[in-house]
């Protein structure tokens, strides 16, 4: 009862996608009756994130849940925590192998490159030949990998198509519009989350191109599900963040209380959400989905 | 006898531990140039700041036309007809002559529901007033920074006169000027006095004071040492009053010259 866990993410303060995880954590901690602290580096600086992990392990929690946004930066502090005897579960970014090398119990997440590749394959089938990848978080390796996977699946070399859009929605929107104006032959768009998807939807709307360009995005939100229903977005890749927030807390609690833990990593995604299966998730999008 | 334009009685002003003024009395009549002399740090600037509403005195009273007043801001003092040209910051060099001239009292004209700065009038009057003072401007848009020090002082004086000052206070207008420019400023003072305005002319320089002054008051370490009329006192005596004269006499003796 009342165990204390620390959840460390790499997301800067604004990333709305993490709201689902925060909600999941809240649900899990209420159900399990434990205390979970959510920590993140305010500006998304991964070096700051490493300090937060060190700090977390110094405060001797009953467990640490962390993303592996950059293996190089985070492996040290995380394996130190493991070595101190603190159980660690990794989530979201990162791969199973990395998680194992660190000595974490398991990894709950989605392989980023593969997810991007899957999206690319579907896009290729829909006839996409030249695309733009709207990267709102260019300093996170995972986001570059998504673009890379998508490009590889389509079979083009990733170059100027990945735009560094920044986080400011007005800027994202006007940059997307500028790109599409200057590259009218673009027939595929990949956005990496709500932060880049929402302004892109607005940009397409304003340019009258809604529905004329194959548009795929990562992650869900109410606006994205709306766009899927109206056919603006072809599909969203759902990594089911709720599981990434909920499962680790439950697993750690079970470990602390009863000493039981699953033996394998868990792939929470990717799941593809299209017009046909949107009804299922629509209600809860952005909250628990 | 009519009441003086302004009268200050037994003014005292303290800044924390520093007693800047400790009982200063002075009055100015219309058309007179009252010179306020004093050593460095004697409290001259502090005294006139009290008179023009910048500082509130800790003790003493100010009478304008015989009535006791209390100024809570420079605006109040200006409204009562007291205009001051301060030692260093008479003008803002980055701004044009017109903007400086009208600063704080801009003329306005209606433009629909709005009131606009009336530049046409402002420029015309500025040029006229400057010409009266003997300053020829290239244009009223010229920045004050491009004028010489003497010209700046003159603009400041012209401004004060134009706004109907009854009492005009000049804080060391000549201290940064050369002989030629000083002569210009002294001539301006004389002209202003002849128009019936009362002047307080602050200076270190006994010669400048004697050239235009009607009465002379000497401050020393925050106290009035006395007031004399023109002709009652000569340069040597004034110099003596300002510094106690002893060191100067000694110095002059030991150096074999006159100070």
């Amino acid at each position, binding site marked *: 009862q009342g165990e204390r866990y620390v959840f460390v993410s790499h997301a800067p*303060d*604004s*990333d*709305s996608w993490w*709201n689902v995880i*925060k*909600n999941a954590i*809240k649900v899990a901690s209420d159900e399990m009756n434990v205390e979970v602290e959510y920590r993140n580096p*305010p500006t998304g600086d991964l070096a700051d994130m490493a300090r937060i992990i060190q700090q977390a392990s110094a405060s001797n929690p009953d467990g640490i849940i962390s993303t592996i946004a950059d293996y190089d930066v985070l492996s040290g502090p995380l394996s130190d925590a493991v070595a101190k005897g603190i159980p660690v579960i990794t989530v979201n970014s990162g791969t199973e192998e990395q998680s194992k090398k660190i000595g974490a119990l398991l990894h709950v997440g989605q392989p980023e490159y593969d997810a991007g590749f899957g999206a690319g394959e579907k896009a290729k089938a829909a006839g996409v030949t030249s695309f733009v990848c709207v990267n709102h978080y260019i300093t996170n390796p995972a986001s570059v990998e998504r673009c890379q996977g998508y490009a590889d699946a389509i079979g083009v070399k990733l170059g*100027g198509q990945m735009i*560094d859009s920044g*986080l*400011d*929605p*007005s800027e994202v*929107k*006007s940059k997307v519009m*500028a790109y599409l*104006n*200057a590259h009218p032959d673009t027939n595929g768009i990949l956005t990496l989350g709500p932060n880049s998807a929402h302004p892109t939807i607005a940009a397409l709307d*304003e*340019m*009258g191109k*809604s*529905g004329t360009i194959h548009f795929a995005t990562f992650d869900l*939100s*109410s*606006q994205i599900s709306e766009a899927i229903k109206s056919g603006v977005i072809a599909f969203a890749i759902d990594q089911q963040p709720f599981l990434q927030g909920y499962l680790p807390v439950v697993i750690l609690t079970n470990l602390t209380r009863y000493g039981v833990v699953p033996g394998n990593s868990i792939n929470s995604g990717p799941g593809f959400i299209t017009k046909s299966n949107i009804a299922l998730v629509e209600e809860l999008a*952005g909250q628990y989905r | 006898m009519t009441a003086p334009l302004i009268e200050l009685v037994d003014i005292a002003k303290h800044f924390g531990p520093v007693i800047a003024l400790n009982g200063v009395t002075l009055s100015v009549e219309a058309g007179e140039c009252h010179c306020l002399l004093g050593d460095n740090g004697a409290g001259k600037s502090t005294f006139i700041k009290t008179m023009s509403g910048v500082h509130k005195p800790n003790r003493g009273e100010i009478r304008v036309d015989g009535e006791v007043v209390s100024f809570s801001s*420079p*605006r109040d003092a*200006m409204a009562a007809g007291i205009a001051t040209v301060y030692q260093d*910051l*008479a003008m*803002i*060099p*980055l*701004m044009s002559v017109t*903007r400086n001239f*009208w*600063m*704080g*009292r*801009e003329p*306005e004209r209606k433009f629909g529901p709005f*009131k*606009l*700065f009336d530049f046409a009038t402002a420029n015309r009057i500025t040029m006229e007033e400057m*010409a*009266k003072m*003997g*300053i*020829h401007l290239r244009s009223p848009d010229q920045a004050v*920074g*491009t*004028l*010489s020090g003497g010209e700046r002082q003159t603009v400041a004086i012209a401004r004060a006169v134009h706004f109907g000052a009854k009492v005009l206070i000049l804080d060391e207008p000549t201290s940064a000027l050369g002989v030629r420019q000083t002569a*210009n400023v002294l001539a301006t003072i*004389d*002209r202003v006095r002849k128009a019936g305005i009362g002047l307080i002319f602050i200076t270190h320089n006994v010669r400048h004071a004697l050239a235009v002054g009607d009465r002379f008051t000497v401050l020393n370490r925050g106290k009035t040492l006395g007031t004399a009329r023109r002709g009652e006192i000569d340069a040597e005596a004034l110099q003596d009053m300002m510094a106690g004269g002893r060191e100067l006499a000694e110095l002059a003796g030991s150096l074999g010259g006159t100070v």
Partner: protein
Amino acid sequence: MSTADGRSVEQLRDEARDERVREMSRFRKALIRPELGAICGTILVFVFFLSIAGDSGMFAPEGILNWGTVSAQFAIIAVGACLLMIAGEFDLSVGSMIGFSGIVIALLTVQVGLPAWAAILIAFALAMAIGAFNGYLVIRTGLPSFIVTLAFLYILRGLTIFISITTTRKTIIGGVREAAESDPIAWLFGGKAFHGLFVWLSQHGIVGTFVAGPKAGQPVIEGIPMLMVWALVLIVLGHLLLTRTKFGNWIFAAGGDAQAARYVGVPVNRVKISMFMLTAFCATVFATCQVMEFGSAAADRGLLKEFEAIISVVIGGALLTGGYGSVVGAALGALIFGVVQQGLFFAGVESSLFRVFLGVILLLAVILNTYIRRMITGER
């Protein structure tokens, strides 16, 4: 006033002119104005992009609208920053204020359920109160505004994140658009103006129409975003305020030499505090437009916007230490900023080079501006 010694006046006047200094030619004098640097910069930037991206759609109506909107955004905050800078202070908390106002509006409409107009009014009131407090602190403590507003950069950003996290457990709050539908005021910030005009223009073939997609047949430009209208209104009003009114003269005076201004009766404190409030007002206009356009507010909106505002203003010829500058210049600075940022996309240049460009333009513009200013003001 008659001159008692008529002769010597003429004489003195002649001597006041210094025969040792050459007079400036009339042409040069007409050219030399605070905005000159920004005007040259604008021309240069346009020539540059016309030549490298002239056929990329950058100068088609849609393209113009694109960089126009971006420039308008910068211009809105630049107007406030410009007047404040001329009044001798500056504000590093503009960016944080943008985030703060946005979150306040979103929280009040979506969480509290107030009507949008009430939320907007409250946000404006709050922001301007904070601006006034900033100004009050600067004036009371006599500290440089750099430090006071730096403190508020942190305080406001922290508060914004704190209130949005503690009340909603989110840092992005969406759903504002739905809540603001058919609101009497919200339209002023998120709407588009002159829709009819563009329909007419498209019917006469001046503006293209969409040929495919859901909007086929409609003009490619739906209207001028209200953001641009706000920018224009603020620029024009700001310019008039500064150059044509009494208050404008006080702004110059407060920044040029606060003490001198105070002594001639200019209410310097009031001027400075109102300029801090104006800056907060502009930041809130920016935030409200953004919230209404995108329907959501995020706690980290406006990051680094304070620098962008200052850069626009400085490119526009204002003096960092106050007392000199021009709203039109600042607006041109914002235009340069927007055109360069978007132009690089149109030109297909690697977008990260934008910052390099910007830095170089800033340096060149400031060097030119300094030279011009010295000629005008006789400063050394």
